[in-house]
């Protein structure tokens, strides 16, 4: 009995978050909707006029969209594997982080595949993927992987939410509209916290958490194989699987840190998201950045040292400051060196600097995705010999940028709306603690 009272008290503390929408939040929602509308205009043009409105042409057949796809889907994987690992290994400080990780998983996991659709010439024929599937194609692997993954991830998040839904619907002091209470009641699936229910929920959650870990490794590798399986310099690399896995998790950890920092300020969660949490997440970021740095180094070193013609050509574009040199430098400095320094120095190991370096790292990792996709496509094995500049050098158009920002805006919007439906810190998760 004591436990539920205490859980309710906690809920009272979080209540303002789900009870009302502040003016600032409304303004944010309006701004994000504007970005999404702009993306809609761009999408309309792309459908009405054709993909000719993008900067993509016969050599650079994939551009911003695919970079965004890898970026978002990678973030999603990180959310899944992080919440899975933290849950399975019963990491004591996981509680305030797992919900954020779970929401990141879903939000990014839903947006990523949209960018693939944007890149596909005939999305009116998407059903062909299921009518005439060919198992040899890495795209078929990816379709199967992402579908499986999304179902798993949504189920997993839902399972971790059931106890909270039950708590919200029973908490009479919550001043929420009746439709919302009804929604919580329906979503709680009649969970009342009986011993049988507890046991079932726990074993189901644990099972899914365990399944999610290898699943993320598999799908992240499958994603990399879309590139790795081709005979292209810069892509045809055996380490691409693990390289993508670690790059994905690193980026996602960065996103989670930034969101932790934002909600900590926004909903006054300093008591829950303590400095300790940022330090631990910082350590995870440090280890991943070091691992990612190691992979990057061995990838570029072998290409450069072996100096095969095609590898050299792509590398020379990455090293040349008149081409991608500055971006390459930025992506390595800010994704590898900066997070390591900030977390390694005790003076800088504070929520603010960690979150700031995480934000820069996330940007750098986006640039990295661009540098994986575009320079390789600008370096075909045969000379391009074309006088049309757009066929030689890829420059993204405003339509592609508008849809990119619309994707980011949708990601943030899903987060804001979710934070109005469920508490960012899983309230019911603390009940067990207090019982013990």
């Amino acid at each position, binding site marked *: 009995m004591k436990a539920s009272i205490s859980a309710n008290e906690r809920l009272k503390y979080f209540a303002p978050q789900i009870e009302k929408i502040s003016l600032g939040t409304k303004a944010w929602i309006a701004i994000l909707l504007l970005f999404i509308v702009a993306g809609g205009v761009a999408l309309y043009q792309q459908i009405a*006029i*054709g*993909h*000719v409105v993008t900067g*993509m*042409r*016969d*050599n650079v*057949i*994939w551009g911003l969209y695919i970079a965004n796809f890898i970026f978002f889907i990678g973030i999603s994987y990180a959310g899944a594997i992080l919440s899975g690992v933290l849950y399975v290994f019963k990491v004591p400080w996981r509680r305030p982080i797992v919900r954020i990780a779970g929401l990141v998983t879903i939000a990014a996991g839903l947006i990523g595949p949209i960018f693939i659709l944007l*890149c*596909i*010439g*005939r*999305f009116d*024929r*998407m059903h*062909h*993927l299921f*009518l*005439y*599937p*060919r198992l*040899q*194609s*890495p*795209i*078929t692997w990816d*379709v199967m992987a992402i579908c499986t993954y999304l179902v798993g991830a949504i189920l997993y998040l839902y399972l971790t939410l059931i106890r909270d839904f039950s708590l919200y619907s029973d908490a009479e002091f919550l001043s929420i509209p009746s439709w919302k209470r009804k929604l919580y009641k329906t979503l709680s699936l009649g969970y009342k916290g009986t011993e049988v229910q507890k046991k079932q929920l726990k074993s189901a959650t644990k099972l899914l958490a365990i399944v999610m870990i290898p699943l993320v490794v598999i799908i992240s590798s499958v994603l990399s194989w*879309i590139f790795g*399986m*081709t*005979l*292209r310099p810069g892509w045809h690399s055996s380490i691409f699987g693990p390289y993508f896995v670690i790059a994905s998790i690193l980026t996602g950890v960065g996103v989670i840190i930034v969101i932790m920092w934002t909600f900590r300020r926004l909903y006054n969660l300093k008591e829950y998201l303590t400095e300790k949490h940022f330090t631990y997440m910082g350590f995870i970021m440090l280890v991943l950045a070091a691992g990612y740095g190691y992979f990057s180094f061995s990838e570029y070193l072998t290409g450069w040292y072996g100096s095969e013609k095609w590898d050299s050509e792509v590398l020379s574009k990455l090293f040349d400051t008149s081409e991608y040199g500055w971006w390459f430098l930025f992506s390595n400095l800010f994704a590898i060196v900066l997070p390591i320094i900030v977390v390694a120095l005790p003076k800088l190991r504070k929520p603010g600097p960690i979150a700031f370096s995480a934000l820069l790292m996330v940007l750098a990792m986006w640039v990295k995705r661009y540098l994986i996709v575009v320079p390789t*496509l600008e370096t*075909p*094995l*045969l*000379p*391009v*010999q*074309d*006088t*049309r500049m757009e066929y030689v050098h890829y420059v993204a158009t405003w339509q592609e940028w508008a849809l990119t920002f619309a994707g980011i805006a949708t990601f943030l919007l899903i987060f804001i709306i979710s934070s109005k439906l469920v508490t960012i810190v899983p309230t019911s998760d603390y009940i067990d603690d207090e019982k013990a």
Partner: protein
Amino acid sequence: MQNSDNTHGNERRDFIKLTVLGAAAAACGSAICSCGKKEEEGKKVKLLSPDGKLVEVDSKHLKPVHKTVGVSNEEARHGIPGRKFVMVIDLAKCGNARKCVTACQKMHHLPEEKEWLQVKLMMDNPESAPYWFPKTCFHCDNPPCVKVCPVDATFKRQDGLVLIDSDRCIGCKFCMAACPYSTRVFNWSEPDLPEEVAGLCYSPETSVPSKVGTVEKCDFCPDMVRAGQLPDCVTACPNGVFYFGDENEDVVSNGEETVRFSQLIKDKSGYRFMEDLGTQPRVWYLPPTDRLFPVERGLDDLPENIKNRFNDVM
């Protein structure tokens, strides 16, 4: 006559069997395609079937088709039985006349800027001699493009050809990423085609008309081959650069001379481009030795925009 009281299904099946028609009008099955002009119904037309029988077909099933007889999608995917097509390109004879490029564009109703067949100016290293390099699709026996297609829109036929079904293609462009030879092109916008071309029945064998949001490429003109003719690039070349033929028969022809394929490869040290990629192309090259023209001649009379392509090399 004998079919006149058969069911509609039988009629259609027999009708599909009619491959080579003596008449100028060619057929395109209503089961396969519903485009083209509608003929008035009820008229019976007498036609000769491949096994020599005279059959009567309702004229509503007859539709005019581009150039040659339409084959069913199944046949187009299967290929011509018993054949193994091969091409030999003699680099010693190429002077960049670009007749192959324009003939190909005309044949497939391509705009000027879209080249399924390209002529590159190759220079392997700064000291080596540059040479003109016509490049078709290589119709590889181990095609990386076919491997990666998620929907079986691009496929390898038993006669060696790699074709695309633009009605199936979802436009993911993965095949373009996978092809190491930059052979494939994409329709970035709605193709600007005259009405009579846009209304033609599509077949993977003709690759006409182009469709927005899909991939296309050199197809070795299987419709011409079915009609017993050489592909247009072969006949258009004034210098006899291209030899096309059948590896099973061990014969290739450039329209003027017909030679043994194996002997030609042996005598002139034929090789395949980038053999080390393991794609096993069906296109062979003869090295540019004892050339017919100095390489600079290929730059004469070129329009400025095409000439500028080769600025980096010469």
